[in-house]
């Protein structure tokens, strides 16, 4: 009850606070960066590895990935229209200049950087954190600061930048990196594996419940730069962690590329909850600029009774190509995918999930809510695969699409493959238009049309928003409201 009260209070605050429809994270930080030249070849891959002072196994991994990528072609099966991307016209490494490499204390961080994250609502100062969230802040190609690292270490939890993990915990990286998403997986996974520059690493030892939310905040700042990061989360037996990811980028007229990989491993009885609020710059009203967001996210329920739950709120990016998936390997393991994807103006999203049932008695739930407005296109694409040995497995999928206006599109591409007879797979899908009746009903009670849409859309997405941790739920509600402003009328 207490929580509900807080939620309602926040909802109210949102409705009052949010008045401008502009993308409010579009500012650029004027900070000196160290960038390498545009273009991609083996030397660039070597240079990135060298800049990060990586051990030999990392360079080998990168080179193998790069050579594999060179032989691949960009996938064309998604319901997306993407102009040809010139991979030689992108900067693959750009780092804000810092006094020392890998700053340890807050004082060593450039005040401009601190100010940037403050402005984004992400405080790097542990003292200012009341909400119990540990943050790894990533700007362009590198991690700027990871908070609460020491107090988490007391519990045996490792939470640090990926680069640091490569230096400090090479065995864990060697063991798990690429074990869920191999570099051969797809075009963007191969590209990322070749040139990724940083990201977050999180390891929860056996039997530990992580006491605070862990989060990574990704910020693209430099122009013409691609961001390629990796996140790797390992939860040992009986461990629990809730992980959050947020992202923003400046408003720029040219498109920028973001190709990330997230890998999750959940061992016996482990539970990993991964939440994303994706708010990359979506481009302007006419479709100029914006981030191309090509992300491979996959979790492996390796142990028995393990569980991985994805929740995503996708409001940003010009193009989104993303399918957070679960491989349900352990018997009785559980996979969940809750998604709200909003597209407005000329945005395009092709997003969904894959649930691969391999263990016996495995369960998966998919709830996808698409909201399209303006001239945008929004597709759900999902695969539910139940293998022969995954007896007595269950899946429930629900895909709803909400259309605002008559120039936008909503599409559903569900793929279902079931190879045994005693599993149950259910799929429900609805498409609806936001009713003028509903808007008028709100108007008649004194609620303006913009606010009415915010209210109706938040109601429609509630089932998913409720899955988000508190802090994020509030942020997400605001975002839904902002993303759709100006979409009707």
């Amino acid at each position, binding site marked *: 009850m207490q929580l509900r009260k807080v939620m*309602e209070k926040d*909802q109210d605050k949102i409705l009052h606070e949010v008045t401008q429809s502009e993308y409010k994270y579009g500012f650029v930080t004027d900070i000196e960066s160290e960038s390498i030249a545009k273009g991609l070849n083996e030397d660039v891959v070597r240079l990135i590895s060298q800049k990060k002072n990586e051990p030999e196994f990392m360079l080998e991994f990168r080179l193998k990935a790069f050579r594999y990528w060179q032989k691949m072609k960009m996938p064309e099966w998604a319901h997306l229209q993407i102009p040809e991307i010139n991979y030689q016209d992108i900067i693959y490494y750009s780092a804000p200049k810092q006094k020392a490499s890998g700053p340890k204390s807050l004082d060593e961080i450039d005040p401009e950087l601190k100010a940037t994250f403050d402005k984004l609502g992400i405080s790097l100062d542990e003292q200012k954190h009341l909400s119990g969230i540990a943050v790894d802040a990533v700007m362009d190609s590198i991690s700027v600061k990871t908070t609460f690292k020491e107090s988490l270490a007391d519990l045996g939890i490792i939470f640090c930048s990926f680069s640091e993990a490569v230096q400090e915990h090479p065995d864990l990286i060697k063991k798990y990196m690429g074990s869920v998403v191999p570099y051969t997986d797809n075009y963007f996974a191969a590209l990322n594996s070749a040139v990724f520059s940083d990201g977050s690493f999180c390891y929860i030892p056996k039997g530990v419940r992580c006491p605070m939310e862990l989060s990574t905040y990704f910020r693209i700042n430099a122009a013409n730069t691609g961001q390629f990061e990796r996140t790797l989360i390992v939860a040992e037996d009986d461990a629990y962690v809730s992980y959050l990811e947020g992202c923003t980028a400046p408003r720029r007229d040219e498109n920028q590329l973001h190709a990330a990989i997230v890998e999750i491993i959940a061992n016996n009885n482990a539970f990993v909850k991964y939440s994303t609020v994706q708010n990359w710059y979506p481009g302007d009203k006419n479709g100029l600029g914006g981030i191309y967001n090509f992300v491979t996210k996959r979790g492996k329920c390796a142990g028995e009774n393990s569980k991985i739950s994805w929740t995503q709120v996708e409001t940003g990016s010009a193009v989104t190509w993303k399918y957070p998936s679960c491989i349900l390997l352990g018997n009785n393991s559980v996979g969940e995918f809750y998604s709200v994807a909003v597209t407005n103006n000329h945005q395009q999203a092709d997003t969904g999930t894959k649930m691969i049932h391999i263990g016996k008695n495995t369960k998966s739930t998919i709830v996808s809510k698409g909201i399209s407005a303006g001239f945008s296109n929004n597709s759900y694409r999902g695969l539910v695969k139940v293998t022969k040995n995954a007896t007595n497995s269950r899946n429930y999928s629900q895909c709803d699409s909400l259309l605002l206006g008559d120039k936008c599109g909503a599409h559903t591409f569900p793929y279902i493959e079931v190879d045994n007879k005693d599993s149950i797979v259910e799929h429900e899908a609805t498409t609806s238009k936001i009713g003028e009746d509903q808007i008028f009903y*709100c*108007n008649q*009670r004194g609620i303006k049309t913009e*606010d009415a849409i915010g209210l109706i859309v*938040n109601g429609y997405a*509630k*089932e998913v928003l409720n899955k988000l941790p508190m802090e994020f739920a509030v942020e997400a509600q605001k975002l839904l409201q902002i993303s759709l402003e100006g979409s009707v009328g």
Partner: protein
Amino acid sequence: MLSIKNLHANIEGKEILKGINLEVKEGEVHAIMGPNGSGKSTLASVLAGRDMFTVTEGKVTYMGHNLFELSPEERASEGIFLGFQYPIEIPGVSMVNFMKTALNEQRKHKGLEPLSSSDFLKHMREKKELVELDTNLTNRSVNEGFSGGEKKRNEIFQMAMLEPKLAILDETDSGLDIDALRIVANGVNKLKSPHNASIVITHYQRLLDYIIPDYVHVLYDGKIIRSGGKELAFELEEKGYDWLKKGITV
């Protein structure tokens, strides 16, 4: 308070209202009766600002404003409330949140601070008792899965919450059993004051056993063809509408 002069309105070119005249003063209760298709609901919708109807002629003044210069939400904030004949469902939006948003938007319009959570909840508790509304209904999504009677009662609850100056109740009695009818009528009667007014649109005389109108108007083919006191309602109940229609050339 409300002055309607020679109001004409159409939908997709088809004229529905053909010259309505009506004066409503503070403290008054007006009943508008008439057979199906006579334009009763259209009149309610036009007053509330539904844009599917086009006003072609006439003037409506409300509290000194030209009503047609106000948006639907401004009309609401200026105190016009429409009790819908078919209340709309809004899945996922709780009644509490909906009412709080509406009430605070209206307060903002009047230059008032939003109500604090505790004041709002207190206000809501009082009004719920007034219309004998089940506590659970306010925790559910707006009208979602409500029975017909619950929806109507919920309209009266919203009216109680928003304390309008002019309430227009569009066939609030249709589909109600006698107990629900009594509760709805009680709610309306308790909210009556010398400073507000209501227009009760109804098909049957039945509701007027509970809500005593000061004036009764008969709407037929887009015009008010007869006005009178409450006794007119009894006459209609007895004789039907036909005796009135006879004198009219259509």
